[in-house]
């Protein structure tokens, strides 16, 4: 299983108390199982399930993807730019 960099922004950063960390994730990930894995480390993230989406290597994740250890995952809470 790859250890990848996970980035946290806005509410997720406040909940986890981290800007980023290395996390062991399954080789094949989807939005659901990424959130499940990360909620094991940070249970409070469960409160945002249904509102969060995920970016994989700086693009929104659609469906599932095979992870490499050099990949970057980001938790994306509801956006509010502009």
């Amino acid at each position, binding site marked *: 299983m790859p250890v990848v960099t996970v980035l946290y922004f806005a509410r997720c950063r406040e909940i986890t108390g981290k800007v980023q960390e290395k996390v062991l994730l399954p080789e094949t990930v989807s939005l659901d199982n990424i959130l499940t894995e990360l909620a094991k480390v940070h249970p409070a993230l469960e409160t945002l399930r249904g509102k969060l989406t995920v*970016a994989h290597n*700086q693009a929104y994740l659609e469906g599932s993807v095979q992870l490499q250890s050099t990949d970057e995952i980001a938790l*994306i809470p*509801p*956006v*509010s*730019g502009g």
Partner: protein
Amino acid sequence: MWYVKMSYTRFQIHVCGMLCDFTCLLKSKILSQIMSTNDRDQIIITSDPLNVQRALDHITIPSCGGISIFCGTTRDTFQDKTVLYLEYEAYEAMAIKEIVRICDDLAASFDVRKIYVAHRTGRVDVCETSIIVAASSPHRSDAITFVSKAVDKIKERAPVWKKEWYEDGSVWKENCKCTGPV
């Protein structure tokens, strides 16, 4: 022993107990700015104040008679609350890529020749500008429609977040996914 201490106005290097002080040296390097640029586009995420003249300088060209510029600024109220300021945070590398994707997609449908998008991060006080979206086209309708749709899409998709600060606390805002009437 070497270590480096940085702040917005001071840059100090401590070497074996000796202090070298380069006051005000690195403000521009410490403030965050990331940019994507090509012949058509300038896309910028920056913690510096935005300057609408920079948009005009980029998008004004002889072949374009229509220029459209949208500036989003901090409003002083939300419902019955007084807003003190907004605080923006961005996943900067992805925000740039997402804005480039949005501009490329829309530019396939509208005859815009130059595009400028700048989004600010950090604290943005009331009346200050947090976003500029600007485009030029040979005739006005393409520029106006492009800018309107680009603003909607950027608000919907760009990984940028704002926290609204009041006298009694703060709230992370969430943009509505519904788009405007254009």
